[in-house]
């Protein structure tokens, strides 16, 4: 019995072991720079935006869906929020609220395509990815927008003592995500739908409504990630979010959320985010080229999904 427990413990915490090994390797390879306080704060800032976006993505993948549009949502939030502040002189907080509402609305649109029309999530969110990337371009005309309120730095640049505020926002978001998954009935519904949609519906869950909610939340969290990124970068570019959905999906899947739905936890995703974040940072520190980074991240994604699928196969016999 005790061997079984320790085996389970190892299995459910293997992801953290991977993280620790990764940190040790980079710490040695970088001669200590990697674990220096400056770099740790740096990593915290770097992971914050896709950490925030990964929460919505976790919900989506839990119900066996996918959201490819979040990169474009991040872009459009950057462009719209900056445009409102710079070109129209809108108050910073109002601009943020409007941008988040827009992000949520795009999520609702995704939900509509998936739940009400029945377009496969991959295609529906791919369509909106293309659409809103285009819209962002049309608004900005392809030119970067900069020169907004310096107080906007609160979301991505400022710090409380040594702790960056964006990291605090991320931690708060993870807490909310964890609360939704574990303490609210919505979490139970997510797992149920991911496990078996038909049986969930027949158990009294209004599956379509939950799908709307989940894609809306994915949009909202992506929007918040966009605000943090805009604050950090100081200028809105219409290419800023391109490909970010890839990093976010990798974090979530690496964190043990099954692409087949129904299995996963928030703490696993936190580990996934930290692994990808420190991997990216470590590789930059080691002066690894951007293309090599792409190769490494692609391999990580394939291995993470592969492990999930293999364990499922083994369970079948």
């Amino acid at each position: 019995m005790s061997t079984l427990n320790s085996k389970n413990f190892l299995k459910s915490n293997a992801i953290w072991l991977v993280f620790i090994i990764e940190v040790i390797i980079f710490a040695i390879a970088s001669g200590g720079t990697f674990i220096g306080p400056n770099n740790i704060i740096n990593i915290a800032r770097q992971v914050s935006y896709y950490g925030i976006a990964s929460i919505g993505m976790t919900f989506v993948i839990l119900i066996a869906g996918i959201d490819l549009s979040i990169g474009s949502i991040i872009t459009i939030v950057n462009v719209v929020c900056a445009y409102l502040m710079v070109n129209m002189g809108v108050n910073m907080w109002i601009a943020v609220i409007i941008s988040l509402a827009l992000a949520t609305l795009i999520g609702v649109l995704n939900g509509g395509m998936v739940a009400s029309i029945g377009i496969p999530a991959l295609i529906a969110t791919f369509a909106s990815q293309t659409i809103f990337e285009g819209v962002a371009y049309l608004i900005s005309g392809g030119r970067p927008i900069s020169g907004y309120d310096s107080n906007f730095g609160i979301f991505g640049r400022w710090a409380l003592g040594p702790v960056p505020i964006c990291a605090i926002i991320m931690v708060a978001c993870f807490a909310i995500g964890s609360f939704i998954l574990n303490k609210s009935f919505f979490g139970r519904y997510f797992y149920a739908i991911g496990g078996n949609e038909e049986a969930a519906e027949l158990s009294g869950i209004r599956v379509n409504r939950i799908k709307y909610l989940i894609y809306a939340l994915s949009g909202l969290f992506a929007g918040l990630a966009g605000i943090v990124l805009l604050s950090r970068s100081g200028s809105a570019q219409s290419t800023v979010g391109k490909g970010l959905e890839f990093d976010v999906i990798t974090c979530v899947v690496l964190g043990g959320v099954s692409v087949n739905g129904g299995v996963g936890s928030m703490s696993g995703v936190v580990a996934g985010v930290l692994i990808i974040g420190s991997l990216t940072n470590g590789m930059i520190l080691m002066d690894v080229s951007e293309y090599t980074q792409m190769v490494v991240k692609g391999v990580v994604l394939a291995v993470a999904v592969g492990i999930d699928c293999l364990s499922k196969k083994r369970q079948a016999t």
Partner: protein
Amino acid sequence: MSEDYVLELEHIRKEYPGVVALKDVTLQLRRGEVLGLIGENGAGKSTLIKCCSGAVIPTSGKIRVNGKEFDRMTPQLAAENGIAIIYQEFNNVGELSAAENLFLGRPIRKGIVIDRKAMEEEAAKAFAQLQIKINPKELVKNLSVGYQQMIEIAKAIQQNAQVLIMDEPSAPLTTNEVENMFKVVELLRKKGVSIIYISHRLEEIFRLSDRIEVIRDGEYVDTLITPKATVDQLIKMMVGREMTQKYPPRKDCIDHSKVVLELKNVFGNGDRDISFQIHAGEVLGLGGLVGAGRTEIAEVIFGSKPMESGTILLNGKQIHPKSPREAIDLGIALVPEDRKRHGALLTNSIKNNINMPIYERISKLSVIDAGTEKSTAEKYRKEIQIKCPTINQLVKNLSGGNQQKVILGKWLAANSQLIIFDEPTRGIDVGAKYEIYKLINDLVEAGRSVLMISSEMEELIGMSDRIVVLAEREITGELQKEEFNADTIMAYASAIKDKKEAS
């Protein structure tokens, strides 16, 4: 001595988490004989033959093929040792020809090119050997089910199968096709092929087999020489008890003054003009052949399929549930036929399953009251005796009977007044069946109402207070308890056809 036997299974045991599928089964197959294997649903026949094919790995026991001993089979080992299984579902590829299917996975080649002509010639020879007339060039999707099965058999023989295991081979076939299949079986026996023939139809077993092995509840019962066996004897061995004890007694609890559910001229989901009433404390049986429209009417009542016209009254009030959620809130529940697909959330815990319909009721501002959640699950675990180590166990690790109880627990938690059971005991072993029947009794004795769809005639007669029979999507008859009779029900179940022929 073991040389007499082609295949021997010794003390095979198979455990799954929470359930023992096979306790101790022994089987010996002689060269060139047909061995009938019989047992009730859930007796363990399928698990046993899957041990022979390598699809299931036995927990303990020995498998001996031609004297060679194995702890377990793999699909490759089974093929190498000449064991082939004809399942109810075939492994043919419809878009390929009969010949190509025969050589699927090991085509005859000329260099790197597939030699179609040689394959067709070989196939023609193989078919002629079995005296079956199939054009080797014909696409398999254009062949009847009977011929598709023949191709499976021919494939097995082509691969030098010495042991052929046939799982309910007559189930998908027409009467003529069954006759042809019998001829092939006879032919194979003469050629020295040993056959394990599994069937529910005892007359087939009597006609074909040399010996009959009976298993019950995962245990070996006995093996009889066919000419010396009788039908009554076999039934008794399969069931293991007198028929009269099969259904637990129920108090007279029907309140005729209280109509709980009434359907008036309901059309929808393919069904036409359905009208019936269910009283408080009553079990209304819904009989008919598969496809008669019974599940369909249940789906309409439960709101998962739309009603086109007509009226549904619940406790005298008109209702029109448009989703399962609405039906559940009105006090209607459905225990579906396909438990694993529609009933239980297999990857969720028992606790979550039981609370699933009531989460919104036990939450404040979306936050679940964890105490109530746990106590509700514990309450129904005790009340309906769900056998499990903890309520946090995943439902997929439970036996069929316990899964069914979890589903029932969910509806009790939701405080359902009308519970629709669609084939309540399908795939559930005998002991658990009895428990389900007792639970149904408890429900009606507590004043709830039950609508029970069943294709098992005995169950329908044994459990119902009244039976409504459907045929071709319409009601064709209603029987009171004193009129219950299998022949009458069957007559109603095929009534419309007769009417059509008469007119």
